[in-house]
């Protein structure tokens, strides 16, 4: 069950993991993007942690607040993408104060749909969609979430980017893990850990 307190804990955990991986995210983005992903995600999730001290009546309220915070604080492309994800997940959580595996999955599917729409991207373009979409498409409660996410992040290494700044690197984008895929796995791991 994901409770409001559990959701908050997941976001705090995501923030500390992003902080721990800040340089890695930035280095990956420097290789195939503009080198700001670590800094942007760090700034965004610091702002998220700051709003967690407030009280939230529902999971929907919390998710919406998190999304709005990310939208205005992240700065780079990750802002509208992660922001839209949490904002669009909010109505699915609705008035619930705790969510079972199925509701969390449904909310995350909404989030993934929002990311695809906002980024106008599909699976196979070496973006965060390559984590969100396949992770959710056949997700079962008994899965090893972390292993599945690690595998999906690793799979972006051999892809050629056709979307976003990384697409300017063309064939040279092969051989580097997508930074958005890595940050997505951090956020999803943190959330799934609280569902278990």
């Amino acid at each position, binding site marked *: 069950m994901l409770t409001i307190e559990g959701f908050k804990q997941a976001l705090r955990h995501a923030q500390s993991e992003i902080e721990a991986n800040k340089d890695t995210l930035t280095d990956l983005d420097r290789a195939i993007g503009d080198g*700001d992903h670590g800094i*942007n995600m760090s700034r965004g999730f610091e702002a998220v942690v700051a709003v967690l001290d407030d009280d939230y009546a529902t999971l929907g309220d919390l998710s919406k607040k998190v999304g709005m915070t990310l*939208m*205005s*604080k*992240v*700065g*780079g*492309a*990750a*802002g*509208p*993408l992660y*922001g*839209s994800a949490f904002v669009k997940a909010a109505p699915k959580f609705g008035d619930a104060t705790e969510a079972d595996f199925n509701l969390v999955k449904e909310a995350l599917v909404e989030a993934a749909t929002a990311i695809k729409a*906002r*980024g106008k991207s599909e699976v196979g373009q070496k973006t965060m969609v390559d984590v969100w979409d396949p992770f959710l498409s056949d997700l079962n409660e008994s899965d090893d979430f972390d292993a599945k996410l690690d595998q999906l992040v690793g799979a972006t290494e051999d892809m050629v980017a056709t979307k*976003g*700044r990384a697409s300017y690197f063309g064939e040279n984008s092969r051989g580097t893990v997508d930074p958005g895929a890595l940050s997505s796995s951090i956020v999803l791991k943190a959330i799934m850990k609280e569902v278990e």
Partner: protein
Amino acid sequence: MKEMAPSVPIHLASGLEDGSIGTDVTRILEAIEAVDKEALILSDIGSATMNAELAVDMYEGEKTVQFYDGPIVESAFVASVSAGNGMDVAQIVEQLKMA
């Protein structure tokens, strides 16, 4: 552009709250609020474009708000001169598509 079309209000919505590089959708929404009736939003690259589209989706007011995805300097030039000549946003976007 201020010299070419002095009557056309141009609002800068770039950068973050603290002045650092990036785009903040709330600043774009504030810029929309700052105009009278119609707003044309232009952006440079990736994340700014995404934030501009997000702002258009999030805006709930009565104004006509449109985003045009094109080269920012050239588009801003054509748009401000066209607006100065009395064109509305729809006409300006048509103009930009031809340019």
